[in-house]
């Protein structure tokens, strides 16, 4: 009997409550053990975890690397695999390996196979790919069926080909197909966080409004609590409503903390757009069960007239070198804007290449406007500043040339009114030029109209162990 058959026997037709635990909203950064163990004791019907996001920036998607460490990623995966198999329930992981493209998924699948071998686990595994075929995206560009979700550079057919990786966010539909293969473990590429938790309720016939709302809240584990945290979260779906409870007794799901979670990382607190429709929480109700638990009801699900998929692409920009330095000189600080402009011109002349074309040199001055692009300078100049120079070029050699030249000429730049004629900068260590790896940019953050969702997200099944 497959995991799904057992669930259908127990909760099919939404007759009984469905217990879902969310082990992590960021698998690979550490899953607190006590709360996860408590989650297992509650006999959940399914265990889910999300492993990725666009939040850490375009590098990970572009480079095909994980943002999380190899050791902690394996430790978390082992905890979840062993836990899920110990109680015989499906484990569903979304956006494998931070970016959810082919190399991320392959890395995580290899880890899962190794853990299964070491722990003597046997299960059927479904992998769902999220890499978009380039010809499909180019056809969407030509047919004007793809549009950006904000202000960004143009994304045409050349940019489709130029992206290092191009993925689509799969929805609930893809996870449903994977579970229907009888898989006990589902590892997905780039996916909507919600889909991890909405797939089984959808398969069992639970109403989609409350099911999708439950999925949206529970995917961040105990972040919807006061105080918020990373501990395993339990959601009990009972048809038209669901109850939220943190598996850490110190974290409380209150009506206010749960309602506030609708704001988190969302541009619209009332609506969440999914490939298959829109979750509308305008009429949601939040009621305390007790001081630790909250019941939620009233969300509506509006099926889409046309399927859409969010498209994410990252493109290589160049090799990056950071230059790090500080200053405590009041005259240097007072004139820093002019000094850095002069420096850019001097470096361009010395390097003999065209800035902005052959390489990019920029500065962030911490203490003035390194963090926020303040429209006005500070009322009182800071006592010290930290200067972060950034050189990006097609080759590491050129990026280093730009950074090293900048370092020496900025150190000795003879600006008007200079007092400290032996040097303008303090270096905390040398070399102050730090090779920072490849620089990428998000070239796509678009929404694309799609006729056939299943064709975009193929499922591959394997017997592990």
């Amino acid at each position, binding site marked *: 009997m497959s995991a799904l058959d057992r669930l259908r026997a127990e909760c099919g037709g939404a007759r009984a409550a469905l217990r879902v635990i969310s082990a992590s909203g960021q698998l690979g950064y550490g899953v607190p053990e006590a709360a996860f163990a408590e989650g297992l004791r509650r006999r959940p019907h399914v265990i889910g975890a999300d492993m990725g996001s666009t939040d850490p920036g375009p590098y990970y998607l572009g480079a095909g690397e994980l943002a999380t460490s190899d050791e902690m990623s394996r430790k978390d995966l082992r905890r979840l695999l062993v836990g899920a198999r110990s109680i015989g329930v499906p484990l569903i992981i979304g956006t494998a390996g931070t970016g959810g493209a082919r190399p991320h998924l392959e890395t995580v699948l290899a880890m899962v196979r190794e853990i299964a071998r070491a722990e003597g686990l046997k299960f059927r595994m479904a992998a769902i790919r999220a890499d978009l075929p380039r010809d499909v995206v180019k056809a969407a560009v030509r047919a004007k069926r793809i549009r950006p979700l904000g202000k960004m550079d143009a994304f045409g057919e050349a940019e489709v080909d130029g992206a290092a990786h191009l993925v689509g966010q799969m929805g609930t539909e893809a996870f449903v197909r994977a579970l229907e293969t009888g898989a006990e473990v589902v590892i997905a590429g780039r996916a909507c966080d919600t889909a991890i938790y909405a797939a089984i309720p959808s398969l069992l016939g639970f109403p989609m409004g409350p099911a999708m709302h439950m999925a949206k809240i529970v995917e961040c584990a105990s972040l919807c609590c006061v105080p918020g945290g990373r501990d395993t979260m339990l959601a009990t779906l009972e048809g038209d409503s669901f109850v939220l409870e943190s598996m850490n007794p110190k974290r409380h799901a209150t009506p206010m903390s749960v309602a506030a979670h609708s704001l988190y990382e969302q541009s619209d607190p009332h609506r969440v757009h999914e490939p298959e429709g829109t979750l509308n929480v305008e009429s949601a109700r939040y009621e305390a069960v007790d001081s630790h638990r909250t019941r939620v009801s009233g969300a509506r699900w509006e099926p889409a007239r046309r399927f859409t998929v969010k498209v994410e692409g990252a493109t290589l920009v160049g090799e990056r070198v950071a230059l790090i330095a500080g200053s405590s000189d009041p005259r240097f600080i007072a004139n820093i804007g002019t000094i850095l402009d002069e420096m850019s011109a001097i470096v361009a002349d010395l390097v003999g290449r065209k800035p902005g074309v052959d390489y990019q040199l920029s500065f962030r001055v911490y203490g003035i406007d390194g963090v926020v692009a303040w429209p006005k300078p500070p009322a009182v100049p800071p006592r010290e500043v930290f200067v972060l120079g950034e050189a990006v070029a097609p080759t590491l050699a050129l990026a280093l040339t730009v950074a090293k030249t900048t370092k020496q000429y900025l150190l000795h730049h003879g600006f008007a009114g200079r007092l400290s004629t032996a040097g303008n900068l303090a270096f905390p260590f040398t070399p102050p030029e730090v090779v920072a790896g490849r620089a990428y940019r*998000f070239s796509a953050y678009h929404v694309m109209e799609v006729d056939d969702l299943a064709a975009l997200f193929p499922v591959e099944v394997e017997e592990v162990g």
Partner: protein
Amino acid sequence: MKLMDLARVVRSKNAGPLKITLDLMFEDEARYQRALQSPALSPGAIAPLYGLARSQVEVIPYRPALAIKVVMDRTVPSGSLGDRDVYGAQQHAPLLEVEI
């Protein structure tokens, strides 16, 4: 009264790599209403604090959480050259001193 003294939470974060969202949360209905009615929290008042045009800022009240959401265009996508804050988690400071 400054926003940082009136609000319980003032936070910022990416809402995808092309938008920044600021969530202002209040302890009670009175404080929420006071902030909601303040002209200092209109798109036209917030935009210049970030060097943005009025059309790039949206203000959305969210009564269930006694919160006001501000959504702004990023001038640079998250992680592109020139970005200052990949996660967008430190873009709340210009609002803190606003007089409500």
